[in-house]
């Protein structure tokens, strides 16, 4: 098994006719992902290398049975495209687009939550890869193979770095989920960690966080209460200076300082091992699972 994307995935890509959109769609298809359709308003009836393009998500769902959407349109159109996919009954929406205004994200998130029909992953994320099954997004799949490590991360390139360090030590992955680092992620660490806990093919969960917000602190609480599998964490930003934020309202909201030290302490207090470098994370993984392959 894997989580979120796999052989059951029937992908429809919003922005399939754009340069980046078509490039990555075709790479995903080449990997084995079932790409069934695309959406570009005004280009319905065309096709991209044999993939039919529709004017609306509703048409794409009706005609091709799409159950998963990938959003590749520019930030100004992205929130609308996500809402359209949700309205059309898509179950899993993966938003790659970077730079969506925060208030758009807030509105989109609130609608999806209220309706309770779809899951949004991202925005501003590299997508989801279940090695050997499906790749939806921009993760360079060639670096990863099938295995028993579930990986969830706020950062794209850091995911590749850590995934690659694990691969060099013989580990493969059940599923790699990029949740994105934006202020209002559709899916949080705890959602993915919960899914990985229930996934029989995952034996080790690696979470990769960074400074800002309190998602890692909340994950620490969740792990202590609900997770039986070993969890290993990495936090980026120990030496980053605090952002130049003004006003004090932010700091008193969550009670967390949002620093890497605070996050590492919160995780370690709940028994989660925290590696100080990507290399150390891979070394600790070896000690937890034994040398693989």
């Amino acid at each position, binding site marked *: 098994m894997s989580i979120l994307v796999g052989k059951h995935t029937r992908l429809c890509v919003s922005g399939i006719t754009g340069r*980046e959109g078509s490039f*990555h769609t075709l790479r995903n298809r080449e990997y084995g992902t079932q790409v069934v359709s695309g959406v570009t308003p005004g280009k319905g009836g065309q096709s991209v290398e044999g993939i039919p393009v529709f004017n609306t998500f509703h048409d794409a769902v009706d005609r091709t049975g799409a159950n998963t959407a990938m959003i590749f349109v520019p930030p*100004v159109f992205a929130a609308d495209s996500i809402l359209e996919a949700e309205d059309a009954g898509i179950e899993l929406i993966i938003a790659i687009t*970077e*730079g*969506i*205004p*925060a*208030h758009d994200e*807030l*509105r989109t*998130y*609130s*609608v999806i939550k*209220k309706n309770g029909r779809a899951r949004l992953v991202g925005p*501003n994320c*590299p997508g989801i890869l279940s090695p050997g099954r499906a790749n939806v997004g*921009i*993760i*360079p799949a060639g*670096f990863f193979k099938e295995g028993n490590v579930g990986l969830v*991360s*706020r*950062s*794209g*390139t*850091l*995911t*590749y*770095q850590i995934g*690659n360090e694990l691969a060099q030590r013989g580990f493969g992955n059940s599923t790699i989920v990029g949740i994105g*680092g934006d*202020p*209002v992620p559709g899916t949080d660490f705890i959602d993915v960690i919960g899914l990985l806990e229930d996934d029989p093919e995952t034996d080790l969960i690696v979470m990769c966080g*960074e*400074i*800002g917000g*309190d*998602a890692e602190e909340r994950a620490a609480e969740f792990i202590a209460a609900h997770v039986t599998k070993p969890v290993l964490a*990495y936090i*980026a*930003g*120990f*030496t*980053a200076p605090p*952002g*130049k934020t*003004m*006003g*004090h*309202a932010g*700091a*008193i*909201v*969550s009670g967390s300082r949002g620093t*890497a030290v605070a996050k590492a302490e919160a995780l370690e207090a709940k028994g989660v091992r925290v590696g*100080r*470098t*990507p*290399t150390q994370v891979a070394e600790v993984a070896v000690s937890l699972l034994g040398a693989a392959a």
Partner: protein
Amino acid sequence: MYYSRQLMDLLEYQGKQLFARHGIPVSPGRAVRTVEEAVAAADEIGYPCVVKAQVQIGGRGKAGGIKLADDRDEVRRHASAILGMDIRGLIVKEVWIELASDIASEYYASIVFDRSAKAPLVMLSTKGGMDIEAVADEDPDAIAKLHVDPLLGFQPFHGRRLAFEAGVDEDVVRPVGAMLSKLYDAFVAEEATLVEVNPLIVTPERVVRALDAKVTLDGNALFRHPENAELRDPSAEDEQERMAHERGLTYVKLDGDIGILGNGAGLVMSTLDVVALAGGRPANFLDAGGGSKAEAIASAVEVILSDPKVKAVLFNIFGGITRCDEVARGLIEAFAQVKPEVPFVVRLDGTNDVEGRRLLAEANLPNVFAESTMDGAAKKVVELAAGS
């Protein structure tokens, strides 16, 4: 991401001008850059007035950056002292001249983007005019808090609940609620991530007014707000940061001597950590972003090298959407344009890494060292920076 999302902090007067556009009561005032302009502004506004340093830092009053002036001579004296003043590293280039207010009560109000609850959080307290973080520590119950459903918006009952819960004087419950409602309108309409008023005052005539304004705008939304995109803070502009901003790069200046370039905020932050663990001190954070083309890389190198403190540069690239051959071409282009005098350590992994490494090897650039791991690259660059 932490650094890639550009937040735009406004100066007090810019925040007040934004408030005024949304009908939030503020005192009349003018922003000026010279002593003569300050005197002319005060004459126009009337006395007594307040001369306030416009820098984005707390504790302006304690630092002597806020002064009351009863007449023209005092305005002249205070403006001369405050313009050019160094307040914790920021040089005051503008002052705001504002009509002085009589104060009966000082409250605190704010609306912040609560990432954890994924909803705007509105806060109100009667303990205004002081450090709200200290209030939150010592007397958390003194701050009334309420999350607003973004799909519903701020309703009049929200304002009443907050006002009664915070314990504001009963005769001003309605105007305080109205002000919160207008602050919420401004928060949404201007796409802010923070609006904060401290103090929110009640005058002896029972008029409610915003005596200070802190506003942070979402840089990603500025395309919808061209008038806000024009706002500038001359005191906070660093040369490299301005250069990077103009080139569309995410750059934060740090105080070390090792220039850093990477792709993706998380990997760049991780690179800073690994360099620090190896005993080095990064000079900057620079995220070249996803899918960087050669020109963008060359342009980023120029920004990094324009900081005279840089003694060595580390490129740490793990290509996903970014292609390593493009990064290599960018570096080769940069060397043709700027002829760097400092050593470079380059680590290329990921998409098209073999091609990237081959291009670099063929170009045979002077003083460029290829490393295959992140830890190895960090150690090498620290060594080179120490040796030069």
